[in-house]
């Protein structure tokens, strides 16, 4: 909603300064999206003098004007406004390229072959409430080319307000003014609505057949209106609020809606046959709406969802609360008006609007909740008065008011102690009474009874009144104070600690943490995913590229490498910790994963021993990450998985369970993205590691006897995995073998091509004595024998 402050100030007395008004507005609790102070924002609009005007070819109401906008600078501007203009007048001109405070951008416009270089602006178009005829006219030639903010005093602002769903009572200026009056200690001034002076008997009976959807329906006839243009004061206010003036009667309904927040509808009385019936659309009934669209209640469709109609004795005339029908609306020939002011149940309006895809300023208000009492009555009376003063109304009929079960004011008890114990500050009884009274509540002296106006549809609990008190006192009154309650120890989960440990391990080895996008395209193969079960897709994605929840972290890591490679950063060391998604059974499953990507040079700075990363650099990073979790030692089993090059992938197995995969990313995939160096990726699931890791370590006695060191070098078949050799060594050596490490692997020159040379370094130790050389030598003999027997390994040296 766009609020012109000058209009808002009509409802407050004494008049308050614009600056105070703007300061107080946020205290109401409305979302102030922007406050355009016009004195500042209208600066680009300048005074131009009309030097010549001629009718635009083929039109009777448009003129081509030569407008001098600066000394000697004459522009051609087409004037299509309803306001008369004369040669010699100085008028506000917005040249093409100007942005107006209401959000409109002025551009060049073509009218046939005539190009208009700007716009002559009415007050309403500038966001101003008109003081005169609706167009500022300057006679003083000295003002030529000057900004209109210099030419005249402008003390208004346009405030773009978003009214939160809880406060539909603020969808009218009176609602906002009432709040401001309370905040600023001003008096609310309701608009004058003198009762009609001439009455006729003309009236239309009302029948509410759907009382659960329509709580109250009033209508009244005003006879003898003359349809025409609205007065400048009204038209400019509507324009400032972003509404287009249509005709005086329709403008009155809109104006009063913006004033009271109560939507109104005007029927052409001669279209209303016999009576008004508020009922649901019957099967087969159709209605052509004011915006040209048609709606239909199809035969066979459940009556439960049928929208509510305002019908006459024969057919629907309007889609209740949402939009009027085309044929029953106000036209140039209308002379008698039937004015509707009603209250509809919010949910019904909302459901119908949603189902039919129709919405309007009226439905926006009704679906949030309007006031069936004071606001409805105030708006009704005000509109009738305006139909007399602004639309030439001659006579009024008696009011028909169907209100089968009037809404009552809600009552709550709100002792001051409750307010204090909720806000945590001392609030007195007087403060509570004064605050709530300002907002229209009636309070008993002991606050055992606070009754609330029906316009406050949000007050369904006393806590809302506590908020009201806080707002009137000002939130700044709520000072910080530490809780008297016994504190609890804070903490976090083992999973969270595991994520932090893994992150520290990887950043410590020079990896950058990235943040991926968890949504990916549905199209394309499911690369790198280790998950079982169906993919999870969005029913209403933003676009096809963001429509499936990702099943692996690796694709985005590859994407990150591609992005950075295009910026010449080619030493890839990235990781991400996030969830991957699938649906293995009925319920979706979210698993925490760690994705790692490595490629390029081992070191970033290296002028001597430069080398490229390989599989074992990534495997080392994975092992370090596992070690940081105190996970049991992992084993690695060859595997294949889409996305990894054949023969390069391995499963990571911990405690007998596969917890991840690592390997080399397929070269074709990278070459397509112009990356020609080997890139390695891994993905591990974190949760199983948390479950399997030691919570806290138990001390093991430190060795007290010296160790004996032995190196062993042997030739083994090339296809014998190292892990098998190591396992055999451990088994053959028994408990005395403390550790065995691979020192060297060599194949090539001087060695049988089917073999490779492997050197290991072993440490032997006993817990209870010093091992003798002879003992150890005997053990090494056993190892050599075992390796020979099992793997035909030949000893090279020991």
């Amino acid at each position: 909603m766009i609020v012109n402050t000058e209009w808002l100030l009509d409802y407050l007395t004494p008049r308050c300064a614009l600056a105070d008004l703007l300061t107080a507005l946020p205290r109401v609790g409305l979302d102030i999206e922007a406050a355009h102070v016009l004195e500042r924002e209208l600066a680009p609009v300048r005074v131009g003098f009309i030097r010549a005007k001629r009718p635009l070819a083929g039109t009777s109401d448009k003129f081509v004007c030569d407008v001098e906008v600066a000394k000697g600078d004459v522009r051609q501007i087409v004037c299509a406004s309803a306001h008369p203009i004369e040669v010699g007048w100085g008028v506000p001109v917005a040249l093409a390229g100007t942005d107006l405070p209401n959000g409109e951008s002025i551009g060049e416009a073509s009218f046939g072959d005539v190009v208009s270089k700007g716009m002559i602006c009415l007050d309403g178009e500038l966001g101003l409430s008109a003081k005169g005829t609706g167009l500022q006219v300057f006679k003083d030639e000295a003002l030529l080319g000057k900004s209109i903010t210099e030419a005249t005093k402008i003390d208004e602002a346009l405030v773009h307000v978003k009214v939160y769903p809880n406060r539909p009572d603020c969808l009218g200026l009176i609602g906002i003014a009432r709040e401001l009056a309370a905040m600023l200690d001003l008096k609310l001034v309701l608009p004058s609505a003198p009762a009609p002076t001439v009455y006729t008997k003309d009236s239309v009976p009302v029948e509410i057949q759907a009382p659960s959807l329509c709580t109250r329906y009033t209508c009244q006839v005003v006879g003898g209106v003359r349809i025409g243009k609205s007065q400048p004061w009204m038209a400019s206010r509507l324009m400032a609020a972003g509404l287009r003036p249509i005709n005086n009667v329709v403008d009155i309904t809109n104006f009063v809606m913006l004033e009271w927040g109560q939507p109104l509808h005007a029927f052409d009385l001669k279209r209303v046959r016999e009576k008004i019936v508020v009922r649901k659309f019957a099967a087969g009934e159709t209605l052509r709406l004011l915006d040209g669209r048609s709606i239909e209640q199809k035969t066979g469709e459940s009556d439960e969802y049928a929208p509510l109609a305002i019908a006459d004795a024969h057919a629907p005339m309007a889609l209740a609360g949402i939009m009027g029908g085309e044929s029953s609306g106000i036209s140039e020939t209308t002379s008698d008006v039937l004015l509707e002011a009603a209250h509809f149940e919010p949910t019904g309006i909302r459901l119908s609007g949603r189902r039919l895809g129709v919405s309007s300023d009226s439905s926006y208000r009704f679906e949030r909740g309007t006031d069936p009492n004071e606001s409805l009555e105030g708006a009704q009376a005000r509109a009738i008065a305006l139909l007399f003063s602004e639309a030439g109304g001659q006579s009024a009929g008696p009011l028909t008011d169907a209100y089968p079960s009037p809404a009552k004011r809600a009552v709550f008890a709100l002792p001051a102690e409750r307010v204090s114990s909720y806000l945590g500050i001392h609030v007195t009884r007087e403060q509570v009474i004064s605050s709530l009274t300002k907002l229209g509540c009636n309070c008993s002296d002991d606050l055992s009874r606070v009754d609330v106006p029906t316009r406050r549809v949000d007050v369904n609990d006393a806590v809302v009144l506590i908020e009201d008190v806080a707002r009137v006192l000002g939130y700044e009154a709520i000072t910080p104070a530490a809780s008297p309650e016994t504190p609890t120890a804070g903490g976090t989960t083992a999973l969270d600690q595991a994520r932090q440990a893994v992150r520290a391990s990887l950043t410590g080895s020079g990896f950058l943490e990235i943040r991926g996008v968890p949504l990916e395209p549905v199209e394309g193969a499911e690369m790198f995913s280790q998950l079982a079960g169906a993919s999870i897709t969005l029913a209403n994605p933003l676009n096809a590229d963001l429509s499936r929840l990702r099943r692996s972290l690796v694709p985005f890591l590859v994407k990150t490498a591609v992005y950075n490679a295009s910026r010449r950063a080619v030493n890839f060391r990235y990781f991400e910790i996030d969830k991957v998604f699938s649906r293995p059974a009925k319920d979706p499953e979210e698993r925490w994963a760690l994705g790692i990507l490595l490629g390029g040079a081992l070191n970033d700075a290296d002028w001597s021993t430069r080398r490229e990363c390989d599989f074992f650099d990534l495997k080392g990073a994975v092992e370090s990450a596992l070690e940081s979790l105190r996970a049991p030692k992992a084993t690695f089993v060859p595997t294949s998985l889409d996305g990894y090059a054949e023969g390069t992938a391995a499963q990571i197995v911990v405690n007998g369970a596969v917890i991840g995969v690592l390997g080399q990313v397929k070269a074709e995939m990278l070459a397509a993205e112009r990356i020609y160096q080997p890139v390695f990726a891994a993905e591990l699931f974190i949760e199983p590691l948390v479950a399997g890791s030691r919570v806290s370590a138990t001390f093991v006695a430190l060795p007290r006897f010296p160790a004996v060191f032995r190196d062993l070098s042997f030739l083994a078949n090339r296809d014998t995995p190292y892990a098998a050799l190591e396992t055999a060594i451990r088994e053959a050596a028994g408990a005395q073998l403390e550790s065995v490490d691979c020192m060297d692997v060599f194949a090539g020159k001087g060695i049988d091509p089917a073999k490779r040379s492997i050197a290991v370094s072993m440490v032997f130790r006993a817990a209870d004595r010093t091992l003798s050389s002879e003992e150890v030598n005997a053990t090494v003999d056993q190892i050599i024998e075992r390796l020979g027997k099992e793997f035909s390994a030949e000893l090279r040296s020991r």
Partner: protein
Amino acid sequence: MQSISELVERALAQINAAATPAALDQVRVQYLGKAGELTSQLKSLGSLPAEERKAFGQSVNAAKAQLEEALNERKSVVGQGAKPASAMLDVTLPGRRRLAGRPHPMTVTAETMKRILMGLGFTYEDFPDIETEYFNFDALNTPPWHPARDMHDTFYITPTDGEHRLQTEAELMRTHTTAFQGRVMRARNGQVPIRAMTTGRCYRKDDIDASHFPIFQQLDVFAVGTNLTMSDLRWTLTELAKGLFGGEAKLRFRPSYFPFTTPSAEVDVSCIICKQKGCSLCSRTGWIEVLGSGMMRPEVLKMGGLDPAKHQGFAFGIGVDRITMLRHQINDIRHLYQNEEAFLRQF
């Protein structure tokens, strides 16, 4: 005649004072050279009575050994850098290394907040990204057809074939981490106090621009006790702001609306850049909007199995992306998800 001990003392002083190998060599020649002072002592050996010769000889030899050791020791200190020019170490060449790894700036922001809040007694836990309509909306006092549902443009999950779910069981991507409130309260089974927090991704159908991304991260917090007040909320937020933005950070509360809190407050922090003198970051207002907060609605407590007549609580939610952008003055949210190395290395 000089005593041997005096001579040794003087020689040791000179050895310790020698700063270069050349100077050290001079000291060696002076005392231990052919004509050195100690060597010449031995020459006087013949003039001594026979019974003193042995003892004197021993003391000279001991002194000689002492000085030689001192010379060697000193040589190892002053000798460095004295290698021939061909083997000189160029200490200015770059070190062989990897650039340091870094956590993502959003991680740092979230972990900083978590740490502060853990210190204030809050317990951290993770919750699902895929939520039910019930926990995301209904349990937060936002029933179907509530206009507040318009405030969140929600991504729904494609229903699985043949699976009929109740409306409240419909799956969606959580639009806020606030959805965890109902789950926490249900798990606590009516027990208070509760001091809980979570963080994670949230999803809204926003078009991508400099300040919007359909995926963002929130950190949500709530506490329920028998006597918690809005003033406790303000205290908690003040402590958090001090930890995040420094001790001078001030807070401002503004009335606002969330379906799950009343009173609701939008919270602004005093501009950390301009110290409230006015700058472009704060749109010259001196204040920056950082989070939404309030006292938990009775309906929310009730649906969580608590008794609004006995229990009171507060809640707040913070945009981790936004705080990260503020802390580092990042002007475009897309940087956070592009992962350009030049960006990641700045934090």
